[in-house]
């Protein structure tokens, strides 16, 4: 990797801020062996390491569920807030308002987002809150032992034989419609795609919504499940191939072919999306939603970056707050002087 340099002959590789990957690791996972979530944690570690993000400049947020436990399994040097079920968006909003200089990554699940958390999720999207929101999506409730979630596909079968007779909520289509400015879907088993997507996510300014299909090996990895490793391996249809070149990488990006879509990220990084689906334009909102809706009929699970908009102001931009974190502003800036109170009192006489 161009982003990692060798530390002498024998030492571990260091990233461009001089940290080895071990400084991005977390505690030992208590999730099931083979759980897709663990692979996602690994990719987050790789992406943060390769992007050279200072771990102390990261806030890890989550709700409740298997997915929401995972912030404990990556980046121990980052503050983390495992909140209440379905409410990670509001807690993240508050934390980001308090300190918008941080990189914020939230990990949720399909139940935490698409059922109990739907109300807060849609408003987070609408605000274009600057954070990365990952749904570790396995279509099933794990901690309560295997009930369908709202992202389970129509006709998908539980281990017990129960068939899901309600349509799935497509969180990507929803996110595009409601205002997220970077929307993608990946698969926990696709290391290369997920890593590239996460690195681009780190570079993006605005709400990044990534739906990562992450099979539940215990409750939803059997024949008849549409969120199993096997089903994903057979039906994963990438719409684009993601190439990401970080701003600090000294690599020339050539803009030649009509088959690629190049996006300049706000931090100077480049995102190159090589079109696999004919003429797919990731800045066309209506087309992105239509493409996703059409795929529902064909059993294909589209993956890739569906939508990106680097121009839209974030919630922080709209609030027009000072550059410094609100949390640590000195008293001289946050408490008006006595003359201010005196004037108010005079006005009330």
């Amino acid at each position, binding site marked *: 990797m161009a982003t990692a340099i060798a530390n002498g002959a024998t030492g571990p590789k260091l990233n461009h801020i001089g940290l080895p990957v071990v400084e991005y690791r977390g505690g030992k996972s208590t999730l099931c062996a083979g759980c897709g979530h663990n692979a996602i944690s690994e990719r987050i570690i790789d992406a943060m390491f390769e992007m050279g993000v200072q771990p102390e400049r990261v806030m890890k947020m989550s709700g409740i569920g298997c997915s929401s436990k995972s912030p404990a399994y990556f980046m121990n040097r980052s503050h983390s807030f495992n*909140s209440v079920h379905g409410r990670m968006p509001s807690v993240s909003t508050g934390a980001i308002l308090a*300190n918008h200089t941080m990189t914020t990554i939230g990990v949720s699940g399909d139940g935490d987002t698409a059922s109990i958390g739907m109300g807060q999720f849609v408003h987070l999207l609408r605000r274009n809150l600057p954070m990365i929101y990952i749904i570790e999506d396995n279509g099933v409730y794990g901690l309560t032992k295997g009930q369908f979630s709202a992202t389970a596909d129509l006709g998908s079968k539980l281990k017990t034989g129960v068939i899901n007779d309600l349509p799935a909520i497509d969180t990507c289509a929803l996110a595009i419609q409601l205002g997220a400015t970077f929307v993608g879907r990946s698969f926990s088993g696709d290391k290369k795609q997920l890593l590239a997507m996460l690195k681009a996510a780190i570079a993006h300014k605005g709400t990044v919504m990534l739906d990562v299909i992450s099979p539940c090996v215990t409750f939803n990895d059997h024949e008849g499940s549409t969120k199993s490793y096997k089903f994903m391996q057979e039906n994963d249809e990438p719409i684009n191939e993601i190439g990401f070149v970080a701003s600090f990488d000294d690599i020339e990006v050539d803009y030649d072919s009509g088959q690629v879509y190049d996006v300049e990220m706000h931090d100077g990084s480049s995102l190159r999306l090589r079109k696999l689906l004919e003429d797919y334009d990731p800045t066309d909102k209506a087309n992105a939603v239509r493409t996703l809706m059409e795929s529902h009929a064909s059993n294909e699970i589209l993956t890739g970056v569906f939508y990106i908009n680097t121009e839209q102001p974030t919630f922080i931009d709209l609030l027009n707050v000072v550059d410094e974190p*609100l949390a640590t502003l000195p008293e001289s800036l*946050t408490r008006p002087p006595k003359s201010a109170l005196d004037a108010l009192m005079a006005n009330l006489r």
Partner: protein
Amino acid sequence: MATGDLALSQEQGAISAETRVINEFSINVATVNGSGSQSANSVLLKSIFGMGVPVSGKNLFPSNIAGLPTWYTIRASKGGYVARKRDPEILIALNPETARQDILDLPASGVAIYEENLNLKQYRDDVTCYPVPFDKITAAICPEAKLRKLVRNMVYVGVVAQLLAIDLGVVESGLRKQFAKKQKVFELNFSAVKAGFDYAQEKFTKNDPYFIERMNQTAGKIVVDGNAACGMGAVFAGVTVVAWYPITPSTSVVEATADLLKKFRVTPEGKATFAVVQAEDELAAIGMVLGAGWAGARSMTATSGPGISLMTEFSGLGYYAEIPGVIIDVQRTGPSTGMPTRTQQSDLLSVAFLSHGDTRHIVLLPGSVKECFELTYAAFDLAERLQTPVFVLSDLDLGMNNWMSDPFDYPTTPLDRGKVLTKEDLDRLGGFARYRDVDGDSIGWRTLPGTLHPKAAYFTRGSGHNDAAGYTEKPDEYVALMERLVRKFESARKLVPQPVIVKDGSSKIGFLAFGSTDFALRESLDQISKEHGQSVDYMRIRAYPFAHEIHDFVASHERVYVVEQNRDGQLASLLKLDLPAEQVVKLRSILHYNGLPVDARTITEEFATKEGL
């Protein structure tokens, strides 16, 4: 002022000096919601205030945008009593729908001012009637028909000013203040006042005993509502993040806060040193408050009963994970939607224990607009010092009505940002354990996200955690943490606002109360003394957990009446959980919970009955 004196001299034939009732009566203005009567009521109130007479106003309004009946009562009281008076003496009847009942409710020898064609005289021959052709008067001075509805109300201000002998110059300056930057609006409204004044002067012979006479009891005082006062408290506490969802009667807390923030907290570069977010619901509002508090901001929300119910789960998280935040609950009548525009003190118990599981919250209980300012301010310091959500329990009566008050004092102490470790501290210490009681005060040290030290981070969770913030299900670690939280709560008894001893003599009987009940109770104590010759003691509680002094107060009296505005005696219940068993039997309740602010007469009568007086 000449006009007032003139009016007075004209009436002297009808009412002798001895029978006059001066500066001690109530006015009930009955109008239709949405008719713009608020400005007129406010000008009348400020005119009486401008005459130097202690005054208070209460808006008794329906949950409705426009069309339903609404009443505004203004009480002038030379004795300084500002609670609601049960039977207002003067009626201004402008709502045809309620006019009949309104005049039937007047006490004997009351006064009725009403739209002429309502012909209310037919219902009562024992009240003084002043019929006024409001529509005709309004039409004459206001050619623009669509403005008449708004201006019409100002006519009664003029009529009342003339009848009560309120100086027209005082009304004029009150009106000028009301429409500070709108000269034309002022002129139109003043012409309506003047027209009403002139009409009354020309047509009426004063036949009632009520007069306003100049006093000097309002010099240096301010008039403000409790919600605005809470907003000021928050701003002078340096609030930086406000998240809220609109709900009556708390909405104006955030509106006031936001206005002040825009006024005082924008840098010369035009950037805000604050964020105000209208959330999608109260769950999100409290979530944002805790997220911001966790990341180090001074954060706040304001809500009322239904919002408090929605904040239940997060409140437990705030308590257990020890996250600061300020929640202002402007109480209204519950349960459920209840009567949203009526007052009550019925959230105390639910707020004190808000959450599933063993939970206790710090609850501050302001009893005046000045305390709305001071206790909101104090709530921010306490929240960060004790690392926990702090609730401020106001109510609709305190929050949405105008109260006379001494001016607020600028805080004398710097902001207390609590126990936060910096990078330099961590360099020195080499690390920390988030929930370890290293100082013996049961409060751990915390770090803020963004602290550039490899050992700064910790994992915040609502699940079982040990003193190093690690996940645990070990019985002893769980119990140790829960017991530390109890010790922390115990230590808060000394840190929270202490009770106020309003009266402590040698009586065997004591009163306990909190919040807006204070106004009526103080008046009741005087009634009890005057009418029953009893001197009783009174302590006003200002916070939960209860200070030790409250235990002492109960211990030193034979009987203690707990006066509060709810059905179930919530303060009494909370006290019973706190007091030693032998003290519990001393408590008895006087309750008022019909949605109207409690009045002194009700308390006095209930006390007399219970005491067999």
